[in-house]
């Protein structure tokens, strides 16, 4: 009985196997077609449509305008220029307010309080000069621009305009082997690279999404704008006649940002033809209907999902970094601080790159946030040059209100025009901050791609700085 059952089973399986050849390769597609046909029939029965199409279709009229050959691109440039202008100008006031509250008022008060409580000096230094100051700095510099930029950006997104930007610019990105929506994640990266990396979720093709993630760092983020503006006005704006200085330094900063966009496209082109050849790639871009923006939704998405989320991650990384910065400046080995040993060790490399050991060390220990690079540079410069009367002591980051004072400190640290130029380049082209790296790891789920995201811009930055420095010296300009 069982052997008969067995042979029957074999027979059925063999029959099924031979019938399989007759199904044809299109079998699965026929299935999809019939599912769609069923769905369409059900929808036709259940949904009633207004009979006549309206004479004026607002969506179509807007689409005609924003994607038109003549007006599409200028309109887009204008809109984004407006967003950036509002962000940069508008963020100044709350930033100053936060800085005066957290750094100028609360910080001395905390120090005195801790001293009154009789806490040991090292604990006060580590906790207040290190951890507190770093996090306070990150909050006051990072929060206001994000809290302005993200709602504006989300407004455009919610209205339905952003997909049209991707539509307008896709050809550019197609040639670089990327997806048109990368234009949006890049734009988001100007706010914050970590948020830009998260935003790559809108790209549904795995290959193009990875490209967008790995190249987002070339968008000059909020944390780097102040550095660029400061260095540009100190070193390059000063070269121009005074009435042009502001214009020249603004042009230089915009130039650096555009260089970033160019590098981002170049890196996309390179990646899509080397490391990412053979990854799955598809394209589709839906242009949703326009709709009145929903205010509550915008505020929630931009402030909770984006700003608070990124800020929290940045704080988590900034707190220990503050401790490290303080320790490096205060732990003494033999007759100098750890920082001075490291700076002497890094100085030769810095020289070849047209930078210096202080800058390299600052980028190393201030990896959590680009916002604290300049304060760290100033602190380390004062530490190594043993300047007196400037700053708050070893391990205490500071900034100076007067640009001339800042320039004096940097000049004392041996800065030249070349150092300024190369710092601007290196600030654009270096590894992403640790917040962004962690976000890339979270989004890609791969240490390998996180490593690539760090190594690629770093190597490129070293190369660019090296070439510029050598050319500069060869031409005898520096």
């Amino acid at each position, binding site marked *: 009985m069982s052997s008969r059952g067995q042979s029957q089973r074999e027979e059925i399986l*063999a029959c099924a*196997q*031979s019938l*399989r*050849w*007759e*199904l*044809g*390769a*299109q079998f*699965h*597609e026929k299935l*999809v*077609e019939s599912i*769609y*046909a069923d769905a369409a029939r059900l929808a036709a029965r259940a949904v009633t449509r207004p009979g006549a199409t309206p004479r004026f279709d607002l969506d*179509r009229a807007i*689409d*005609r305008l924003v*994607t*038109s*050959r003549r007006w*599409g*691109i200028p309109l887009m440039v204008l809109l984004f220029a407006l967003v950036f202008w509002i962000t940069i100008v508008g963020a100044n006031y709350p930033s100053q307010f936060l800085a005066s509250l957290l750094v100028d008022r609360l910080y001395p008060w905390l120090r005195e309080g801790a001293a009154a409580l009789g806490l040991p000096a090292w604990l006060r230094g580590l906790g207040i000069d290190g951890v507190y100051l770093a996090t306070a700095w990150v909050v006051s510099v990072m929060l206001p621009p994000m809290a302005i930029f993200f709602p504006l950006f989300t407004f455009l997104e919610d209205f339905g305009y952003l997909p049209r930007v991707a*539509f*307008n*610019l*896709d*050809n*550019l990105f*197609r040639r670089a082997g990327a997806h*048109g929506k990368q234009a949006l994640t890049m734009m988001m990266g100007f706010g914050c690279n970590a948020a830009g990396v998260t935003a790559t979720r809108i790209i549904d*093709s795995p*290959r193009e999404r990875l490209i967008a993630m790995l190249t987002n760092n070339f968008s000059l983020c909020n944390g780097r704008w102040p550095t660029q503006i400061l260095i540009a006005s100190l070193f390059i704006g000063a070269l121009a006649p005074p009435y042009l200085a502001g214009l020249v330094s603004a042009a230089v900063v915009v130039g650096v940002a555009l260089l970033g966009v160019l590098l981002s496209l170049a890196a996309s082109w390179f990646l899509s033809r080397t490391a990412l*050849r*053979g*990854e*799955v*790639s*598809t*394209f*589709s*871009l*839906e*242009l*949703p*209907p326009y709709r009145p923006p929903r205010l509550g939704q915008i505020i929630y998405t931009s402030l909770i999902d984006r700003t608070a989320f990124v800020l929290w991650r940045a704080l988590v990384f900034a707190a220990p970094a503050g401790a490290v910065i303080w320790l490096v400046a205060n732990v003494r080995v033999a007759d100098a601080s750890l920082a001075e040993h490291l700076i002497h060790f890094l100085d030769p490399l810095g020289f070849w790159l047209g930078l210096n050991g202080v800058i390299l060390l600052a980028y190393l220990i201030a990896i959590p946030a680009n916002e604290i690079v300049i304060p760290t540079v100033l602190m380390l410069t004062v530490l190594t040059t043993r300047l007196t009367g400037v700053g708050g002591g070893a391990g205490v980051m500071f900034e100076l209100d007067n640009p001339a004072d800042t320039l004096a400190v940097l000049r004392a640290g041996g800065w030249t025009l070349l150092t300024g130029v190369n710092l601007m380049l290196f600030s654009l082209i270096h590894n992403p901050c640790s917040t962004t790296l962690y976000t890339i790891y979270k989004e890609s789920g791969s240490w390998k791609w996180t490593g690539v995201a760090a190594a690629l811009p770093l190597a490129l930055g070293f190369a660019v700085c090296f070439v510029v420095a050598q050319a500069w010296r060869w031409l005898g300009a520096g």
Partner: protein
Amino acid sequence: MLGQLAQTGAALAWAVAALAVIAAFVVLARAALARWRQGRQFRLRVRAEDALKHVYKARAAGERPTLESMAGSMQVSVNRAAQTVAGLQKADLLTLGEEGMRLTPSGERYALNVIRAHRLWEQHLAEKTGVAENEWHRRAERQEHLITPEQADSISAGLGHPTHDPHGDPIPGPRGDFPPMSDQLLSSLEPGRWARITHIEDEPEEIFAQIRAMGLAPGMQLRLLAKDPRRLRCWCDGEDHVLAPIVAANLTVQPLAEPAAAGEAARPLLLSHLEPGRRGRVVRLSPRCRGAERRRLMDLGILPGTVVRSELRSPTGGLTAYRVRDTLIALREEQAAQIQIEPLAEPAS
């Protein structure tokens, strides 16, 4: 005192460093040796499997495999081929009789497993990755030796049990079964007949590349328009193609009974050629469009019968937005060129 201490410390550090270097060297050398042994074993297995495949394919084509033909196809010396055959004989996979080399039943089974792995892997590369077409064969040539029959079954399941590889070759079933054949070479088709491409021979590579460059792929329907001893002219997928007979002999086709059965007596238009503001009905997606790309289009509801209207052109070009099932979807030009449509008149307003 302090100087002495420093000297001793330095000497100690040097000694530790030297020890570490020696230890690292020993570990690396052992690993290299093991890898070399593994690699040698793997190369021997590859040679044996390639030999089995050669004998199987020659017999299936009605030819008589010889040591020379085997050496030629495997690109080794005849001596090497003879060694390999001896090994296969010992393993009872191959017999050397009056009428040349033949596979034993277990040898045939083995060969079919390798072929199955090869074709499944090509299908996998075509469907699940973005690897370029000209790399499929080379990659599968290597992978076929690494996939176990169990892995082959799970790959097959993951792909929805495909019956044919992307070149149109049938994939042997897990029991080594093949479909019934009713195909002929394109070069022997009568002019005026409709046929479906079932297979494109992937060797020699130059001819395969030439066929790929024309954009022909298995599953496409074509019509042979004219034929003379020097060239064949056929219509396929919205375009005319001219082929040399030697190229046509690398294409296997299945004749279709009636032009009507082909469902495209009229020449369809490509969606990429649809002018803005005009409508069309999708006839089908080109078989060239496969894998994730094809599924994405189908997910968006672009299927035979769907009405599509061209609406917006990107100002920088290369991209057009289409109204599909009440949704505005932008497709790139090369994607739209994969979709065949029949133009529709504007509805009376």
